[in-house]
């Protein structure tokens, strides 16, 4: 673009300097005497400008200028005489022949014709690509570097430099600057005195909490344990590796009872689920009910049809409008009833005076009952504290008692075979103490159905 612009300027300049080239205005003034009938043309569009203005002479002239420039490297009129003309002394012939001979001698040095053709014959130098020599953001970078130099003179280092220096110093001393947080299960992790009394905080606790300098206080309610059961429940004395006979029997009995209970429940379930072959079905009961009636039924039902309609209509028909007399009578009766009731109440109240003792006893009984119920409820609440609560879809399942039968007992510590798993025991204990909710293992659920297809190789074999 810049190149084009420059050439354009030059052309303008050259055109203006030519004697035969008249400025636009002057030409208008000069040709005013020989005015052709002006063609009226809209000049609001560039297209019409080009169409109706004659620029042939200008084009020709400019072509000529370009030709001169191409051939000689400038306008011939501007050239010095020395460059255009020379004095022919005739000596040049020798030189020419000599040059020819030298050319002939060096056969290889003669350029190919094709190369000569491809040689640019224009004397105008090719324009330079300015972009190729330009640096992007040069100004900004210069400013930055200047700024950095200024800061460096003051002694302020950039961050990257500072970090680099720190890293170098650390490497030299053998300590890493950035401490990676230690994993919680790192076996070599260090501990310290967590409960040592540090410097007490003097600042406003609300301020500290809001600015996250202090954690929000844990409510006291959270430090209560959800169950009163101890963390470790020691096994019964019968669970010793070398138990006393009777305590062992006790434990066995306990385990046996649990087992029996379980079995009973299972049996009950099985009984309830069992399909009884000769159980009465709807059909069979119906048959039973209808047995012996079927023949009669076929004859009977048609007869009572007319009667049934009548009986349905009957009650509605009897409801006639009450007479005034009836109404009055009823009202009087109602009033009388009410009066009688009120009188009865008054009498009853009076009679209660004589029932004082029995009332007293009944009251006492009631009180006693409430007290008993209160006590019961309290006892139940106390018992609940040590019971596993219902915390999820599943109920807490008490684990099986760990028991070794008499013939399984080890004779010595060496041959002891441990019973049960402590891991499971701990897990169940956590559930029992309501610390975690009982849960069953999440089963794998396939999102999409499996699709089976035969492999091509297999198909081919078949």
């Amino acid at each position, binding site marked *: 673009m810049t190149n084009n612009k420059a050439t354009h300027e030059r052309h303008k300049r050259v055109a203006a300097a030519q004697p035969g080239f008249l400025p636009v205005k002057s030409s208008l003034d000069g040709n005013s005497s020989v005015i052709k009938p002006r063609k009226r043309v809209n000049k609001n569009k560039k297209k019409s400008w080009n169409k109706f203005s004659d620029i042939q002479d200008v084009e020709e002239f400019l072509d000529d200028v370009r030709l001169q420039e191409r051939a000689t490297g400038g306008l011939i009129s501007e050239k010095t005489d020395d460059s255009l003309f020379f004095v022919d002394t005739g000596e040049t012939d020798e030189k020419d022949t000599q040059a020819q001979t030298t050319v002939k001698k060096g056969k290889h040095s003669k350029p190919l014709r094709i190369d000569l053709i491809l040689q640019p014959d224009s004397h105008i130098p090719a324009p330079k690509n300015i972009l190729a020599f330009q640096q992007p953001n040069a100004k900004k970078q210069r400013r930055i570097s200047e700024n950095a130099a200024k800061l460096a003179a003051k002694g302020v280092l950039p961050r990257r430099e500072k970090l680099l220096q720190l890293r170098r110093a650390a490497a030299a001393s053998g300590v890493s600057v950035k401490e*990676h*947080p230690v*994993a*919680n*299960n*790192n*076996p070599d*992790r260090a*501990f*310290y*005195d*967590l*409960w040592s009394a540090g410097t007490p905080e003097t600042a406003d606790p609300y301020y500290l909490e809001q600015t996250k300098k202090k*954690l*929000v206080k*844990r*409510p006291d309610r*959270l*430090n209560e344990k*959800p169950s009163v059961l*101890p*963390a*470790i429940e*020691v*096994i019964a*004395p019968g*669970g*010793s*590796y*070398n*138990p*006393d*006979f*009777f*305590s062992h029997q006790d434990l066995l009995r306990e385990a046996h009872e649990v087992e029996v209970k379980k079995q009973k429940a299972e049996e009950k379930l099985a009984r309830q689920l069992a399909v009884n072959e000769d159980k009465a079905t709807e059909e069979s009961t119906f048959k039973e009910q209808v047995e012996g009636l079927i023949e009669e039924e076929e004859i009977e039902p048609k007869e009572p049809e007319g009667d049934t309609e009548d009986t349905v209509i009957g009650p509605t028909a009897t409801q006639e409008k009450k007479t005034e007399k009836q109404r009055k009578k009823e009202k009087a009766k109602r009033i009388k009833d009410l009066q009688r009731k009120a009188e009865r109440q008054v009498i009853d109240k009076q009679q209660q005076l004589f029932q004082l003792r029995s009332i007293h006893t009944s009251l006492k009984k009631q009180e006693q009952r409430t007290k008993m119920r209160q006590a019961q409820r309290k006892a139940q609440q106390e018992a609940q504290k040590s019971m596993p609560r*219902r*915390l*999820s*879809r599943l109920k807490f399942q008490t684990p099986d008692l*760990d028991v*070794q039968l008499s013939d399984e007992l080890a004779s010595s*510590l*060496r041959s*002891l075979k*441990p*019973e049960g*798993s*402590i*891991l*499971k025991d*701990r*897990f169940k204990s*956590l559930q029992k103490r*309501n*610390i*975690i*909710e009982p*849960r*069953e*293992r999440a089963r794998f659920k396939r999102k999409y159905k499996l699709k089976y297809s035969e492999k091509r190789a297999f198909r081919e074999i078949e």
Partner: protein
Amino acid sequence: MGGLQKKKYESGSVTNYVSRNKARKKLSLSLADFRRLCILKGIYPHEPKHKKKVNKGSTAPRTFYLLKDIRFLLHEPIVGKFREYKIFVRKLRKAYGKAEWSGVQRMKENKPAYKLDHIIKERYPTFIDAVRDVDDALSMSFLFSTFARTGKCHVQTIQLCRRLSVEWMNYIIASRSLRKVFLSIKGIYYQAEVLGQTITWIIPYQFAHDHPTDVDYRVMATFTELYTTLLGFVNFRLYQTLNLVYPPKLDGQGEFSLKSECEEDYALESESYSEKLSALSASLARTVPLVEDEEAELDLFPAEGVRYKMVCCSFFIFLFILFFLRSEGTNSIMCCTLCRCFGGQVSWDKSLCIGSTYDETDETITHHIVDRPTIDKQYINRYYIQPQWVYDCVNGKILLPVEEYFLGVTLPPHLSPFVEESEGDYVPPEKLKLQALQRGEKPQAEDDDEEEEEDDDDDDEDDQSEDEDEANLAEMEEKRAQGKSLSVKVTPGKVKPENRMRAEQEEKAEEKRLAIMMMKKKEKYLYDKIMFGKKRHVREANKLAAKRKAHDDSNKADKKKKKKKC
């Protein structure tokens, strides 16, 4: 009238509770993370009183949390860490997928981690609170320390648990705070008294675990994460109270390193120290060197008298005893803990385990603990006993006679020290014998069993005589109820020596009788009921005792027959 109509389930107990899923969404955590957070922070699910109200009319059982608890969780900085970790995992997975190994490396180096220190401080505001709650932590870390290095949990966790449990055991030895040990079929129950708190924990036998499938390992790992942190801080503080160096260092280490020639067989150079620590056979280094007060204590007991004598200070029952262990596996370690905990010294075969302190040939060894029925080479000046002796001694707090625990002898039953009998309960005769020994009575020679049994019966009678007057009264009442009149006879009188004590007692009994007579009808009824209950209890206990005697007799008869046959 008028006003806005109240909508259902917008006020009252519904507003106090929030379902698990809602809580999870409020915290914007995944279920696993939510569960982890709840475990770490000690937030437990709640069972609402009126489920239908809370559950908006539905009776389906669900997990509920208190809304205030969840609001409290919102302040927890760890929640942010969880989210960070989630993003870390996502980035890592992406880098893996794109096979950007340098990126993976860099990310792994900057893996986000969180600390639980502040949570421990928050949940256990004082040190004693933490000590009180250390039961669970101990059981869990002892359990995890026995896990094999399978994929069930991180190897690092196992190592940390091992370190912490060894530290704890070392503390127990140094502080001599072990009280009870019980070998059960499940594992070994220990009870210690630390800073006035009774702490019970269970240690599994060190055999291969069969990993149960119905246990959520992720939940257990989270608990372990919390508990290891707790236990670490507790250990640190406990070591401080004893002026011990933390992390524990062996006392006189230079001597040790000279001694150990065959160490390399057991452990790598890096691990041998921790292995030696975990052998528990050497004492620990103190920050302030101990003044020799132990030796002063030594002089309190003349050497001869210690044996078979009730030792007032139960901490030092094994004071003059050098043990030598020859039992398999971890039993030795357990025994060692016990022995050292009560003042003894322990060693074992060099080829068996690392950390032995003296040889088998040492002349000063007094007790040789063997778990095999026979042993080839026996030294004359030491007892060869079975390991149960040590445990029973610890539980009885005295040195038991060794005769019952010799090699090849059927051992007396190992009683649970955790059972505390109330008055009138059935007490097994072995325990009675132990109690007699504790009272300082001389045990009968083993040969005349019958005498001993009579002794037992005497004990029973003693027990009964403690509530003598009640029994007397009961007898009287029984007789009266039956309508039998006391037989009347005149016999020549004897001059009774006046016994002051006796008279006093009689007076008391008389007073009581009068008091009973003065009772109202209602109170009398109650009193009779109580007495009846007590009597029934005693009767049951007597029945059990009789049964036991019959059982023993039959056993004895069998034995005698066998002997005759032989």
